[in-house]
């Protein structure tokens, strides 16, 4: 460790001295200190006294910080955020969960991306398998083959999963899911129960597979030689070309779209007399409709006409769904089914998509998607369709649900 560990220069003689010391050790581009502070601080600051000398601030009251900015964190606030778990089990809450419960939870919350057996779906992370592949081409890095600590699994599931509904699992559920992931990697038996008490007894196969960065000794000496500048080689041959592989995103589409837009803009400018009335017409129609039609007739009329503002709002809200669902031209089933034509379609009615049993049954018994049941589903997916594979907590705001409904309607006409 070097001099940069210096935090406080001198014996504590008050906050100004410490602030000055901190400035003395900042190595560059520090804005000048206020003159008064510098004068006051100069005398006691002593660069020869290292960081091991502690400032005498421990005895001062908690609100008496060096600058006195901020407030003391309450124990319940620290408890709410301080949830990290270490390899030695530090940070684990009391609790337990077994493989069987973990299996059920995994199918509900995780399998949609990670696969029924934790084998992974599409590009989503594979959590099981890959044993013995680390020294081969394209190693398969999973919890079983690569991760060094069970604590990392527990901590990550607890803080970040399920994707789109993080921090919603109870400690017992996290123990159970972790147990199932261990089971999927053949590391525990099917009657295994993981708890805070036996947590450190489970060792992952690759725990000893890591070494601390050794570039200083293995690379720096090799890569710090004065390089050749002249007559360095006789011939230069191409050994590999990127265009042969052809995996670079195509940028011509974007350029052409831009050019087409420009051309269209010019065309519009050239014919203003035609464009203006055409644009005005629908506005009039929309404005008149509600006034003229009786309330009973309003519904079918409205169904055929979209509130474009609401559709636009829905497009924004749909970003929350877009991780799993595609909609619009060229939409395909991904993690979730594509949503073209979803309104009016039976639940679980998109061919080729593997729905939950409940969703499929509801559709088979004649339930079709409407604005009403879609709103109910979007508010609390698991309440409306028990056991749905959609690992999404739901939309909290009614206006967001209305916007999504309008947006989906725009792809269902």
């Amino acid at each position, binding site marked *: *460790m070097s001099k*940069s560990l*210096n935090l406080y220069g001198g014996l504590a003689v008050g906050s100004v001295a410490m602030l000055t010391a*901190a400035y003395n050790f*900042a190595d560059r581009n520090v804005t000048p200190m206020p003159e008064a502070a510098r004068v006051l601080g100069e005398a006691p600051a002593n660069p020869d006294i290292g960081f*091991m000398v502690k*400032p005498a*601030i*421990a005895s001062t009251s*908690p609100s008496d*910080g*060096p*600058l006195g*900015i*901020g407030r003391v*964190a309450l124990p319940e*606030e*620290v408890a709410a955020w301080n949830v*990290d778990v*270490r*390899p*030695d089990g530090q940070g684990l809450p009391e609790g337990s969960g077994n493989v069987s419960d973990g299996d059920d939870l995994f199918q509900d919350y995780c399998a949609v*991306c990670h696969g029924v057996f934790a084998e992974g779906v*599409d*590009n*989503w992370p594979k959590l099981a398998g890959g044993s013995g592949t*680390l020294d081969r081409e394209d*190693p398969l*890095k999973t919890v079983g083959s690569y991760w060094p*600590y069970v604590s*990392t699994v527990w901590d*990550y599931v607890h803080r*970040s999963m399920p*994707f789109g509904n*993080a921090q919603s699992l109870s400690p017992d559920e996290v123990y159970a899911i972790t147990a199932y992931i261990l089971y999927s990697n053949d590391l525990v038996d099917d009657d295994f129960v993981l708890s805070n008490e036996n947590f450190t007894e489970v060792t992952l196969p690759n725990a000893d597979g*890591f070494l601390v*960065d050794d570039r200083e000794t293995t690379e720096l000496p090799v*890569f*710090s030689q004065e*390089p050749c*500048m002249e*007559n360095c*080689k006789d011939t*230069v*041959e*191409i050994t*590999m*070309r*990127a265009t042969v*592989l052809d*995996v*670079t995103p195509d940028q011509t589409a*974007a350029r052409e779209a*831009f050019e087409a837009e*420009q051309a269209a803009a010019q065309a519009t400018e*050239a014919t203003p007399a035609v464009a203006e009335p055409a644009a005005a017409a629908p506005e009039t129609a929309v404005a008149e409709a509600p006034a003229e039609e009786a309330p009973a007739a309003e519904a079918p009329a409205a169904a055929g006409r979209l509130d474009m503002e609401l559709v636009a709002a829905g497009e924004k809200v749909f970003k929350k769904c*877009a*991780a*799993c669902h595609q909609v619009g031209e060229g939409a395909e089933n991904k*993690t979730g089914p594509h949503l073209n034509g979803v309104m009016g379609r039976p639940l679980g009615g998109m061919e080729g998509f593997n729905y939950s049993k409940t969703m499929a049954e509801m559709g088979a018994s004649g339930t079709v998607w409407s604005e009403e049941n879609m709103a109910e589903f979007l508010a609390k997916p698991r309440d409306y369709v028990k056991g749905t594979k959609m690992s999404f907590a739901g939309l909290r705001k009614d206006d967001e649900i209305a916007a999504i409904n309008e947006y989906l309607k725009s792809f269902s006409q």
Partner: protein
Amino acid sequence: MTASSNDMKSSRRAFLRGALAAGGTVAGASMAKAAGPDPLITEVQPWASGLGEGVDATPYGLPIKFESDVVRRNVEWLTADVISSINFTPIHALDGTITPQGCAFERHHSGAIELSKQDYRLMINGLVDRPLVFTYADLERFPREQHVYFCECAANTGMEWAGAQLNGAQFTHGMIHNMEYTGVSLRTLLAEAGLDAAGDLSDKWVYVEGADASSNGRSIPMEKALDDVLVAFKANGEALRMEHGYPARLVVPGWEGNMWVKWLRRIEVTDAPVESREETSKYTDTLADGTSRKWTWVMDAKSVITSPSPQAPIHHGKGPLVITGLAWSGRGAITRVDVTTDGGKTWQQARLAAPGQKMALTRFYFDHNWDGEEMFLQARAHDETGYVQPTKTQLRDIRGLNSVYHNNCIQTWWVKPNGEAENVEIS
């Protein structure tokens, strides 16, 4: 802008065709001759007689429409979705060293979140004398610092380990940006909480964590935490963008981008690393024998020629050519950049646009008189520690082919006689 402007356009195109044809026959340094008077000069143009946009037409300005292709781009097949994903800075189209925020690459683990200053809280807890909570307004009351630093994802150029894959500097080297940050040093914030309780600081760590759903967390040794780490709230003079961690992010100079926690919500002083997901299962480097390096935080010295490059081909034919690129090192300042046009048979020193700054991008220029023949362009960075950017073969000899991160190899662009460039590997 109706019929007459279309006529003007077509005559301009004819002119350009003529100039190009003429240019082809012009040799050496002599100037191209015009086929006829340039209507852009001889005819009064609409912008020279009419009026432009008034002030406030765009209260916050964006690049002019002609630059609309200078944008971040992602590579769809790299990730399962766009929420936990990455895109790339269009470095092929930029010059200078500062990356505008609007086109600086994004990397999210649970998407970019909207976190207001009012809702922002930063907690310091663990082995401190006083666990503290700061609001955003609190952060603005601490003494500030300003520094320019590059932020490079450890996976930048990672797709090129096994061979030349992506055809463009944006995609091979665009997981990088370079901004001028304003913020408070982490040292100052830790002093506010008091480190007396931590005892001997030489074996202590800070664990830093974000407020988004991934709550991305990394362990940083105390030595670095007290050295040059910043909690930044401004970049290039204005508030951070949402996608870069508004309202406050961590800046960890010279170290891999994953540690630059965005939407920073918590700093915990600990006596051991947490061994979080992003410092075990990811951001570790597997070697040929199956063992893996961990805690490979420093970004090694690296450079790339940004133009010409596959997305920035040469249109002007032979003659004077500006070859330019970027160089950087996580260990300090860039001191020298070498450039070769013949695939490494002969190297020459490039001109640094300004002396290298520690852990910041350095722009270099190599003014070349192109003979119109094919070129194999490479750049090679040197930093103040004496480190010289290695070839891909040198890296593979030590690390094998199974690494993803920390690929700082010398990049080759094959420039063909027609001016097009391609990403290749050479002997």
